[in-house]
């Protein structure tokens, strides 16, 4: 038995000694960013996809197997993954990706979070103590996270640190130009009142100047009820919402109901990379998001 275990261990360590930096990204947006920076030098595994509610993931066996082999874990943080990631980290038997080690990277730690609750009480729903974790929908945050991530990847893989830096600078150049373009396109959206399904677009609204005047979920994480939706529509006497936004992973029932009652368009936003056919990478995500918003405005 002991011999067998030793053999297994040897086989395991030899498999680990591979050239690529293995990145385990909890969400598609940071997986895509790691790919932009790492290019062909990294193997990126993305634990969730755009049609999954990132709050409701289970510590599946496949996630454990992937976390076991990762050199770098890129998490969104701010308790977005609190339901499954701590369990995966603990049971992975992988020391290098534990919180506090260089192999653990949290996007939320790189930017200033919005909607930090002053009162922590579950009577307010599934609140995140650190603030709203859906921070990637402000492209300026993507840049901040990318800068820190490229540095971290260089620390873990010093031989390619230069390559990561160069790739990030190229990406940042394109991204800055794109932000200018998006902001110009999105100027028409400034001050537009909208409804949202879940508080997943706070950073997008903050960046583009959209005014979120109501949330279909009565409390974060609590499914919309017809009573709440009716009162939501009744309350918006003075300021009419122009559209109702939901993420690709949200059920369309509630926003369609609101759209049917009020005549405002229900807009599905890709939310993350892979959420729509056009959102195949980070730039595509914002291109498609802007296009869908502007189309709804017309």
């Amino acid at each position: 038995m002991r011999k067998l275990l030793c053999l297994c261990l040897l086989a395991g360590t030899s498999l680990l000694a591979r050239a690529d930096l293995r990145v385990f990204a909890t969400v598609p947006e940071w997986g895509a960013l790691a790919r932009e920076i790492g290019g062909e030098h990294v193997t990126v595994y993305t634990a969730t996809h755009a049609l999954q509610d990132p709050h409701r993931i289970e510590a599946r066996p496949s996630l454990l197997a992937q976390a076991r082999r990762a050199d770098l874990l890129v998490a969104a943080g701010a308790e977005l993954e609190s339901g499954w990631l701590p369990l995966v980290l603990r049971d992975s038997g992988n020391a290098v990706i534990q919180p506090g080690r260089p192999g653990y990277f949290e996007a939320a730690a790189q930017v200033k979070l919005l909607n930090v609750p002053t009162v922590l009480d579950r009577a307010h729903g599934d609140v995140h103590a650190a603030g709203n974790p859906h921070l990637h929908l402000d492209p300026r945050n993507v840049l901040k996270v990318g800068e820190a991530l490229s540095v971290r990847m260089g620390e873990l893989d010093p031989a390619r640190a230069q390559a990561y830096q160069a790739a990030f600078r190229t990406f940042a150049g394109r991204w800055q130009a794109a932000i200018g373009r998006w902001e110009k396109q999105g100027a028409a959206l400034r001050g537009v009142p909208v409804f949202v399904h879940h508080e997943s677009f706070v950073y997008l609204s903050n960046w583009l100047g959209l005014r979120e005047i109501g949330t279909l979920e009565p409390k974060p994480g609590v499914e919309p009820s017809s009573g709440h939706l009716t009162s939501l529509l009744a309350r918006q006497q003075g300021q009419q919402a122009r559209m109702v936004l939901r993420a690709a992973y949200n059920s369309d029932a509630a926003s369609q109901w609101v759209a049917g009652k009020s005549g405002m368009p229900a807009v599905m936003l890709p939310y993350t990379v892979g959420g729509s056919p056009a959102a195949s990478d980070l730039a595509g995500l914002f291109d498609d998001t802007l296009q869908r918003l502007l189309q709804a405005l017309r």
Partner: protein
Amino acid sequence: MLHSSRWVLAAAGALVSLPALAGDADLQAVRAEISQLKAAYEQRIAALEARLQTAEQQAASRPAAIAEPPPVSRAAAPASGFNPEVSLILQGQYKNMKDVAERGITGFVPAGGHDHDHGGIAGISKRGFSVDHTELVLAANIDPYWRGQAILAALDGEVEIEEAWVQSLAIGHGIGVKGGRWRSGIGYLNEQHPHAWDFADAPLMYQALFGEHGSYTQDGLQFKWLAPTPLFLEFGAELGRGANFPGSDRNKNGAGAGALFAHVGGDVGLANSWRAGLSYLKTRAREREAHFEDVGGLEAVGAFDGRSTTWVADFVWKWAPDGNPKYRNFKFQTEYFQRREKGSLSCSDDELAGNACDPLAAGDSVTSAYKTRQSGWYAQGVYQFTPNWRAGLRYEQLDSGSRNFGANAANLVVDSYRPKKTTAMADYSWSEFSRVRLQYARDQSMQGLTDHQWTLQYIMSLGAHGAHKF
């Protein structure tokens, strides 16, 4: 800059006051004074300009990251920030079922020992309203190398340590070590606490094999190794005290129980994921007492000495459209168990009723060989059809199998029976933290009795967010 502007003001003031002065000599003196002043502040301005230039150069040479304030400025957390994660599980129920004096499972040795107060298996025989164990969970990282967790279960005047363990964080190479008291990694349901169960009670076979808690808990050490493969492949070994049923407590060095298990799992497409496992548990029992019935219908106590081995095969399949379980998902779960016990059985008459083991009530006992081979299984499916509602069905069947009591076969009743139970449930969850469940069970676990059991149960958790274990 502020400093030099004061000089300019002073100079201007001096110039403005010029016409008020009379006399050439005075004028000369003033002119000299002004030129002195001028020279002095020109010097000062030049010095300031030089300082400004060096400061600008220094700022430019510094990296941008330091020049900018850090993006996140969190207030210094008080020491209470290190308090462990705390959660409290509140659970209670209303149960409607037949009044059975000593509830048990026909053909299986009652795990609860021979305590009259509790009946065959304590806990499952409580009728009407009751509050289950109130579980207090405390957990935190101890340091970069260890994590600790304690689960205390409180019930009317007693607090029980359900689990109290430390787990390694920094060994690496896929190795995990756990020490203390923990739910054994055998089977699938064994590690799950009652609040995570999909039904109000544990499957019959768990109750038959491990007693009232419906799980096997060990004091000892657990080693796990996760293979570095894309397919989930996990191996575990446990060594422990083995004090709990089917073993018995002991006053000895070394280990009283050992277990081995292997798990394999993965995903099939986006929508499906699965896990299968095989486990083996071996324990030793010394004078493990249990209730038996003698051939004349009187009560007898049988004390078992020997080895008990258990095999468990488990399989779980989960489906969710697009892998998003929030709105709809289905879970199928099944486990098969087999237990073999070999040793000796000593039959006695504790009540001094003159039973077959001790017909003269003289305190004698009859010791014989004892060998059993028993099995059982359950299969269940739970379907969540809206974000709030789930419904589930469970079927289970046990087989009392072969029970060889040797010479004691002449003294004790050797039941042969196949207990069955069918359970249906529906539950509603307001959120991840609260759930209420209605359950109906048609229980034929006791020969000659069909018990229709209704359970209305609530499960609430408050505090730290629990983990979504697969």
